[in-house]
């Protein structure tokens, strides 16, 4: 082989970079899946659990648009139950510990919703009282 030294060095660099997730975590067990602590005060969410798991951010977006743009604050859930569309006063009324619920999943996937720049978490609400 010609230029064996250079070619093999190049290949080693390539393999090391492209297998980063493998050797970085070699031998480790898969990290435990997030276990968001479910509210004790209620049995059901606004929508089906499966829908909430996949699409809660889209629901929040719809809520935000409805409230801010159309001044519509009432959301009718799947069983006809009425909810007041609000991040802090509704979602967080049931899911009253952001760290043990929302953040469980979000940290797992490095999602950092910017909502909390303005909106209050239940802890902040308690503090301000």
């Amino acid at each position, binding site marked *: 082989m010609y230029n064996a030294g250079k070619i093999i060095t190049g290949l080693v660099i390539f393999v090391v970079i492209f297998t980063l997730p493998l050797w970085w975590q070699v031998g480790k067990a898969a990290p435990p899946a997030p276990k968001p602590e479910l509210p004790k005060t209620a049995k059901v969410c606004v929508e089906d659990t499966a829908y909430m798991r996949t699409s809660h951010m*889209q629901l929040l977006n719809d809520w935000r648009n409805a409230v801010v743009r159309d001044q519509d604050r009432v959301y009718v859930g799947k069983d006809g139950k009425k909810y007041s569309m609000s991040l802090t006063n509704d979602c967080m009324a049931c899911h009253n510990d952001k760290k043990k619920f929302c953040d469980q999943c979000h940290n797992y*996937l490095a999602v950092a919703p910017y909502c909390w720049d303005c909106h209050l978490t239940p802890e902040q609400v308690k503090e301000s009282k």
Partner: protein
Amino acid sequence: MHVIFSLLAVIVLIAIAYAGVAGAGMTYLFGVVIPYAAVITFFLGLILKVLKWGRSAVPFNIPTTCGQQKSLPWIKPNSVDNPTSTGGVLARMFFEVLTMRSLFRNTKLDYRVAHGQPVIRQGSEKFLWLFAILFHYSFLVVLLWHLRFFMEPVPKLVGVIEALDGFFEFGLPQLLLSGVILVAMAGALLDRRLRMPNIRYISLTSDYFPLFLIMGIGITGILMRYLLRVDITAIKELTMSLAVMKPVIPQAPIDPLFYAHIFLVSVLFAYFPFSKLMHMPGVFMSPTRNLTTNSREVRHVNPWNYPVKTHTYDEYEEDFRDLMIEAGLPVEHNPAEEAAAAEGGGEAAEAEPEAPEEKKE
């Protein structure tokens, strides 16, 4: 033909994944077995091919030059575009890989009739470069961002990328520009292939298929993120288990769309070493880029040269001189005549060339 075949191939691949998962429930096959097999094929195939390339000789010093070579001290050399040193080559490769300079020089033959006269010009054509560089960089961003599925804790870099990528804070989940640009640019490159007759003429299935495949990956990804939401938490459970090599299919159901996405990605990985996509390692191995233009400073010997058996005229005459003299044939060295000339002390001996130079080598 090439276009339709490639498009159909990608559609069939998606259908296979859908049928396999939604129909036959083969989540382990599509979620674990095929991805692992594809990744192994990718690494083995790529390494073997590069080693094979390494075994072929580079017989000539053939760098393409795009500037003045180093010559006389008062002529200013272009040390990057016509590198005579290793440093120059490294600089050239650096810009070639990160900014695609050779593509930037792309030109187009332009024929038009102006003032009743046909005019042919060679004009610059930057769109290929623009589409290609946006395509490659958005692909890189998408790839790095996907590390969030394969590492725990997720590296800080991923958060930075996501923040920049979602700069416009448009919609929820936030619109990431890279994915949109990736698919749009793949589309633009496809459009270019289809619309320019000369490019279309030389395009084959192996050109269209990777484009459709990458568009398919991009579109299934975009669908999963913005339209038909999937359970991303469950997906990370699966991908993390793949990364630590202890594969399990999570309890929470994952939409077949995800399996279609990962199946297309697997096909891309497995196809990679056998496709034009090998230009990724290829760019580093191309002699027109990675050689120094020192063809005037250093003698380059073809490594294929082998010791050739020669029999020069001098040796031939040595073998047959006596016979030749006997037969009256002219010879270069005639010992009898030379001896006579030496005695005569004439100038004839001086004029006689000792060993004709052309005969050597």
